[in-house]
């Protein structure tokens, strides 16, 4: 029997959302609530009604085991409870219910560069960050050269990190984190940083860690990273484990999850609970040129994607974005409804009301295959109102696409029809 590294049973975590009345949040509230409420200072408001709508279960009755040396992936939509689970496992926060046991030293990487201080030099931050991540001083000293090498910041090591470019900063931060050597490593989405080259390097490092036989819990939205690094994956949804399976199967399940209807994604009230934002998505649809909502579109005739949404308040500078991704997690393209300067200028602000932003995908653009559609609503550099990285998946059929007279699979996510010319050069 292989040894146990982590075991959790019925682990649950409840959060309070919104402005619940059972615990005052400011001293003024506290005073107005009167002396009776002073008790709450000491009792942490446990007597609150735990099933009222102001409480949500971020995690509910999660049980699983991880054997020593296993690399386990965790996937799930935003808000599915992944980060909460990792926070509990790394002891940042306490569970509300349930029980868990962890055998061995845990290193948690919920973020790169935690505790980096901008005023301190790269060298100083290596020591500080190392200590914060739980490395001993002699351990940091031993690995110091290796860390500097990996980070590629070499001659800037004595410069305050506030003068670093964001790339250098991230490289240094990841370099420290990558040299942690705990028995159990808990990693949250830290690979989604830096340029492609550095991401490849990070992924390589994570692979090494996995090969060394350490126990790793790995959360990511990057399906290709999950597929590459893990053998088994847990799918979380609404705070519960919906599937634990070999990674390819789990990824497939995750990507096809939450489709209420083929070709259409409808957001229910329950899914948007807790969002008091002025932007409420209603439905996302993929339609063929004849206006029918479909799961499979034909590449040669093009298709349209529309997002229906409601604004409870006017938003100025709003832009609705669509992302198309392959099932391997690579982006194909990103587009916004106000990319076009004419539309951009005619919609400086959108008054409250119901809207549809519709996008035409031209014929002969996509290659055949299954794609993931993500949506996002934001005001550039100000605020992100809504984001769902995998709102919908759809299939592109290549019938009639360029080059179909050769029945072979084409590489790449796009299959554009391009103008070719062939000229015979005369001798």
């Amino acid at each position, binding site marked *: 029997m292989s040894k*146990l590294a982590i075991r959790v049973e019925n682990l649950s975590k409840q959060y309070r959302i919104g402005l619940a009345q059972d615990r005052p949040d400011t001293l003024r509230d506290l005073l107005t609530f009167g002396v009776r409420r002073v008790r709450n200072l000491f009792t942490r408001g446990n007597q609150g009604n735990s099933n009222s709508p102001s409480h949500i279960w971020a995690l509910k009755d999660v049980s699983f085991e991880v054997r020593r040396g296993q690399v386990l992936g965790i996937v799930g939509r935003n808000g599915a409870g992944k980060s909460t689970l990792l926070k509990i496992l790394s002891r940042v926060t306490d569970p509300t219910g*349930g029980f*868990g046991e962890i055998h061995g030293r845990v290193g948690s990487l919920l973020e790169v560069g935690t505790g980096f201080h901008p005023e301190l030099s790269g060298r100083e931050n290596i020591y500080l960050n190392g200590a914060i991540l739980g490395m001993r001083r002699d351990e940091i000293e031993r690995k110091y050269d290796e860390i500097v090498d990996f980070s590629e910041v070499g001659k800037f090591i004595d410069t305050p990190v506030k003068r670093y470019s964001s790339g250098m900063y991230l490289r240094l931060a990841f370099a420290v984190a990558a040299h942690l050597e705990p028995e159990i490593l808990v990693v949250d989405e830290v690979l989604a940083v830096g340029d492609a080259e550095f991401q490849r390097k990070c992924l390589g490092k994570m692979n090494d860690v996995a090969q060394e036989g350490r126990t790793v819990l790995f959360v990511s939205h990057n399906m290709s990273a999950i597929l590459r690094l893990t053998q088994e994956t847990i799918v979380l949804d609404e705070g519960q484990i919906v599937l634990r399976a070999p990674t390819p199967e789990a990824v497939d399940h995750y990507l096809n999850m939450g489709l209420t209807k083929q070709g259409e994604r409808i957001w229910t009230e329950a899914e948007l609970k807790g969002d008091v934002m002025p932007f409420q998505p209603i439905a996302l649809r993929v339609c063929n040129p004849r206006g029918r909502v479909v799961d499979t579109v034909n590449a040669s005739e093009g298709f349209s994607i529309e997002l229906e949404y409601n604004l409870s308040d006017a938003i100025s500078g709003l832009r609705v974005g669509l992302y198309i991704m392959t099932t391997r997690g690579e982006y194909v393209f990103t587009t916004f409804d106000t990319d076009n300067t004419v539309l951009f200028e005619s919609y400086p602000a959108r008054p409250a009301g119901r809207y549809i932003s519709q996008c035409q995908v031209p014929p002969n653009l996509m290659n055949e295959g299954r794609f993931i559609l993500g949506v996002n609503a934001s005001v550039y550099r100000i605020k992100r109102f809504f984001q769902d990285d995998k709102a919908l998946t759809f299939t592109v059929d290549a019938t009639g696409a360029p080059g179909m007279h050769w029945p072979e699979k084409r590489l790449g996510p796009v299959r554009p029809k391009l103008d070719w010319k062939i000229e015979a050069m005369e001798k």
Partner: protein
Amino acid sequence: MDKPQTQTNNTPVIYLRPSKGWLSIDFKELWRYRELIFFLTWRDIKVRYKQAVLGIAWAILQPLLTMLIFTVIFGILLKTPSQNIPYPLFSLTALLPWTLFATALQRSSVSLVGNANLITKIYFPRLAIPLSSVIAALVDFLVSFVVLLGVMIYYHYWPGWNIFWLPLLVLLALLTALSVGLWLSALNVQYRDIQHMVPFIIQVWLYASPIVYPIETIPEGIWRWLYGLNPMVGVIQGFRWALVGGDPPDATMLISVGMVLVLLVSGLFYFRRMEKTFADIV
């Protein structure tokens, strides 16, 4: 609870479960994290005077300038009695432990909120944070102590053997700051009102301590006893006595020490009780 599966080796086992009630203080764990406390302290010191032209000289200037102001207002204009000690020396011997206390208290009470990014991402004993900000204040004190020695030499005062009591008095000042800092920092996590109150608390506290006036100003008897409830009374009285002589600390000192112990123990337990919620509400 179920028995954990049999483990053939002795790796440490961490149990995760909801925490309820009052928790004991895990000094062993705190000791294991001593290097982190060291690095956090070192960071606080290092960062404090970065990009300041005068740098660490501020640690000297602050008590020195306050001493000048107090000397002009209370010593020269108001002619406050000063136990026959030159007024600048009289006020500086009090200002040194006071600045140590005030800096430590101010920094520790906002420390948890200031380190929210650490608290929400990494596990470590949360006590390390207020503890390191209190220790960091000690460095300023040591620097400014050199100035005090200079002023003493100027006035031809030579400290006697009593100076060896100073470390204990410094410890008492630090413990006072820590115990109040524990309460305030934990409260500040949920009630940000605290950080607005802290400057005011410190100001009131300054006048409630025998800094600008001698302790004899307070009538003997019940009032003096009440006055002793302020632990800084004992600290400051002790400082003056250890450095420039005068009345040795009396029973007020005992009250001060007792008060610190009460504040410290209650502060530690309150902090421990609240620390599990810091990451969720900070």
